């Protein structure tokens, strides 16, 4: 479904993405791990055209995704994105955040958007917070609204950019549970994360990115338990012992 071939990007002499190739199937959950600066967020952001790349190809269902493409706005409606810092619209309530895209981008009738929006907020456990402004919600609640907001567009894939990194530890679980539920329902998901527990439990495949290259990939079992590459072992040691 998502096809990345020989993707490269450089800032000056620094290679952020170095000949990355990757296929992601429908309903697959792929976790991307790696140190900060390894290029994992950049790779993810290329997938909905928030970031440009210098060479290579990136397609979703056969259609090319490029930041400066004339059609990128339409393509983005099919690719959801959940950000590390939620990025909810602070001047709109939870339900208004969720229906914003359907109403103004997809021209869904308001009554229908509202009904679907309520159902989505219910689904992420926030049925009682419809009219709350983001400032009144905890980080975990905001992130679940953000997930509902991206689901409201009925995307074919959702990209998660370190969705729990800005959360207090006790709020991480609620967000991960919602993500796990989505995975079980068959949503295609690409998740940049430091949550090794989530990667182990939910991912179909784990990629380890280092200096813009995919150094290792495979099932969570392979990559997280029996990493072949020394750098992967080194990274996992540091992540696990950091706690």
């Amino acid at each position: 479904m998502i096809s990345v071939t020989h993707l490269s990007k450089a800032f000056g002499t620094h290679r952020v993405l170095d000949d990355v190739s990757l296929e992601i199937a429908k309903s697959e959950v792929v976790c991307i791990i790696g140190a900060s600066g390894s290029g994992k967020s950049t790779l993810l952001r290329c997938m909905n055209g928030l970031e440009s790349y210098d060479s290579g190809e990136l397609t979703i269902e056969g259609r090319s995704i490029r930041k400066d493409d004339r059609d990128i706005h339409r393509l983005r409606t099919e690719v959801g994105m959940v950000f590390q810092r939620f990025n909810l619209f602070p001047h709109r309530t939870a339900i208004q955040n969720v229906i914003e895209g359907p109403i103004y981008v997809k021209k869904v009738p308001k009554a229908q958007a509202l009904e679907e929006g309520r159902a989505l907020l219910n689904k992420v456990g926030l049925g009682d917070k419809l009219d709350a402004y983001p400032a009144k919600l905890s980080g975990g609640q905001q992130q679940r609204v953000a997930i509902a907001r991206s689901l409201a567009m009925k995307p074919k894939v959702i990209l998660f950019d370190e969705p729990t990194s800005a959360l207090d530890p006790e709020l991480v679980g609620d967000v991960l549970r919602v993500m796990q539920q989505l995975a079980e329902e068959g949503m295609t998901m690409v998740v940049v994360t430091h949550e090794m527990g989530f990667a182990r439990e939910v991912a179909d495949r784990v990629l380890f990115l280092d200096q813009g290259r995919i150094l290792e990939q495979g099932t969570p079992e392979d990559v997280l338990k029996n990493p072949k590459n020394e750098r992967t072992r080194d990274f996992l040691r540091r992540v696990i012992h950091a706690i």
Partner: protein
Amino acid sequence: MFSDAFLNDAREFLPILAQGCWTTVKLTALALVMSTALGFVLALMRLSPYALVRWPATTFITVIRGIPIIVQLFYIYFVFPDIGISLTAFQAGFIGLGIAYSAYQAENFRAGIEAIDRGQIEAAQSLGMRYLLLLRRVIMPQAIRITLPPYGNTMIMMLKDSSIASTITVAELMRQGQLIASSTFKNMTVFTLVALLYLTMSLPLTVLVHWLEKRFGRR
């Protein structure tokens, strides 16, 4: 506080000064609309990713900010006819003030837009929003809140600076005051009234700004 003579003179002068007030209000309102619209476009140009769009706006703002308003008004009123553009004093007045203030408005708007978290724009883009929709639904509502307090100050400054149009014979409040004063020599009475009238007109603006700040500033 005020003597009988003052009150008698005031009764005589006020109808004329009131006409001046009305012209001042019209002048300020038109200049405000013009500077807001032009300032907004300039701000967007300044924020453009394309140097070819940014550059003219930057140059325009730099030039306009570097020339006194009174010189700009003289230029429009007295020099433009030489190149075939003849305007009435009132037209020259509000266009001049509008252009002069657009530079300040532009910088104010630009600061307001730049203060918005970059993540807001990315979130809107990832919902598939195009530039104009993103501007209307995400940037503007947030930028307005940031921009309102300085915008209020600009409105009040503009009301006062509209008195500069008296120098190109626009019959606004200051001009009417000068005319009465030079024919009656009652400088004290006339300019006290003029000052009080400017103050009276600016007070509702102060209240309005305060109300707008509360209205948009909540949450």
